[in-house]
């Protein structure tokens, strides 16, 4: 049967994620060390898991409100107030989603009409551009560069804006580069965003993994930004809860009203046990100053310094990441492209990394290495990479 007559050509034309190929190869290599993971190496803290188990035993097996449990939404609102000085009404401005990923999709579908342009700083997470396309919009990548610490600048933003630009995705702290935006950078972007009357979808899923002295600065907290920001976050990275699939979106009530329609008709609600676990994470965190998060952040920070230092020692130019758990070294001096480098490294030294090109064209010349892996394994992987680079 010729399905091409049936499917939506716009969707069919979206390329598959470039990461899949590496996944398939690594699967066949038991001795390979993977720096290609994109999630914490911690297991969800015990008390969080236990809360979910107890809720199952207590028979909490029903739907929740479309918005998510009100007790969880209240905890989210308190958390955002406490950690980032953001104020959202848990009744009608906080929506529990299936990971921050759902939030991206909801935001796009709620905002876009055919032909609307959405600015996407790159390199960045693989699902932004496809989500824009799925919602009928046109993604417009804005390349960022290592010279400017992979932080989107006001000038880069301004020059990408056209009369069709409706929104900007702001993916900081950034996967794959580890870049963050400091207060000054966020303020400058804010001026351009307000002047051009844009909506910002701020994906702050890595906000707890910020290693700079000033911590994470959310654009939603700047003057006049709350009204034009769709704030996305979740539990995956901060609380090592990737598999639970719980995130949240926050926005002014009028905007949220539209997003909730899509969510209620397509998702109904996030899984009840995931919500219970998430609530426990925040409740306990409020009491012990987020000690789970602090412990994990400190451990990532040690490994971040180790990894960054090792790439510098190899003579590869490497921008110092101050967020997330990735380093994004430049491998251009090897004369290879990102894909070739990663393929040969995997075949010759059994170390898996992700080519920068998986995160946008401007990722060419870089590789993403995740340091959320035990130090002894990182050591082996780093010495194999050093051998590989020296052998060229």
């Amino acid at each position, binding site marked *: 049967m010729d399905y091409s007559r049936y499917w939506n050509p716009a969707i069919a034309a979206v390329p598959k*994620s470039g*990461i899949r190929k*590496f*996944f398939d190869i*690594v*699967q066949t290599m038991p001795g*390979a060390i*993977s720096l*290609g*993971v*994109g*999630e914490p*190496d911690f297991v969800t803290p015990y008390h969080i898991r236990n809360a979910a188990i107890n809720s199952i035993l207590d028979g909490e097996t029903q739907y929740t409100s479309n918005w998510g449990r009100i007790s969880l939404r209240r905890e989210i609102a308190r958390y955002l107030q406490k950690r980032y000085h953001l104020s959202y009404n848990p009744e009608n401005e906080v929506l529990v989603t299936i990971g921050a990923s759902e939030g991206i999709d909801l935001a796009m579908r709620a905002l876009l009409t055919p032909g609307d342009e959405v600015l996407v700083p790159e390199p960045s*997470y*693989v*699902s932004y551009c496809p989500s824009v396309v799925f919602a009928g919009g046109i993604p417009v990548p804005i390349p960022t560069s290592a010279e400017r610490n992979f932080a989107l600048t006001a000038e880069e933003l301004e020059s990408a804006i056209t009369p069709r630009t409706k929104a900007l995705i702001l993916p900081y702290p950034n*996967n794959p580069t580890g870049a963050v935006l400091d207060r000054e950078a966020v303020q400058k972007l804010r001026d351009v965003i307000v002047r051009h009357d844009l909506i910002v979808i701020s994906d702050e899923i890595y906000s707890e993994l910020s290693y700079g002295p000033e911590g994470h600065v959310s654009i939603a907290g700047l003057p006049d930004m709350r009204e034009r920001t769709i704030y996305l976050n979740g539990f995956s990275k901060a609380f090592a809860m990737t598999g639970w699939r719980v995130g949240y979106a926050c926005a002014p009530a009028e905007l949220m009203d539209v997003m909730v329609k899509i969510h209620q008709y397509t998702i109904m609600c996030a899984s009840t046990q995931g919500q219970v676990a998430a609530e426990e994470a925040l409740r306990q965190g409020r009491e012990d100053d987020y000690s789970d998060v602090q412990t994990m952040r*400190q451990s990532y920070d*040690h*490994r971040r*310094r*180790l990894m960054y*230092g090792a790439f510098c020692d190899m003579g590869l130019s490497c921008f110092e990441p101050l967020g997330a758990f990735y380093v994004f070294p430049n491998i251009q001096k090897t004369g290879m492209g990102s894909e070739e480098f990663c393929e040969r490294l995997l075949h010759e030294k059994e170390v*898996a990394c*992700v080519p920068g090109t*998986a995160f946008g064209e401007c990722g060419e010349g870089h590789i993403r290495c995740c340091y959320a*892996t035990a*130090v*002894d394994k990182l050591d082996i992987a780093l010495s194999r990479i050093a051998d590989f680079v020296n052998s060229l």
Partner: protein
Amino acid sequence: MQNLQIELLQLLQQDCRLPLEKIAVMLGQKPEAVGAMIDDLEKRGIILRYSPVINWDKTDKDRVEAMIEVRVTPQRDEGFDAIAKRIYRFDEVKTVYLMSGAYDLLLLVEAHSLKELGYFVSTKLSVLESVTGTATHFVLKRYKSDGVIFEGDIQDKRMAVNP
């Protein structure tokens, strides 16, 4: 105590063979500074020894371990310290804790054989004047010690590559 010293202690507790240079990188300090910090922690009796966690069950060394609860009469002016001191001087005694609750001291005792351990309890420990009673519990298996899981599933369950 400074956060940095605590971070250092935690790193050493995880792996005390981490080279100084590497610890320095991980903490964002100079190796000399880390060296000085370690010297200081040693001098102050905070770091007492650098020893590995060993799973003796996997060796062919004959060895039995027991936890012994000990009830004692505290001594005037000295409380429990004097008797604790007498007990910890025995080579068989590896660990001594003063406990709250139904008994006073908890010992972790090691010997080559059951017989030897029984001999220790009956001829060395029980006969001490202030000891009023003991209860010996033999260790059958160690599942986890010092934060290290001795056996079981500790594999990385993550997918090798994801976005």
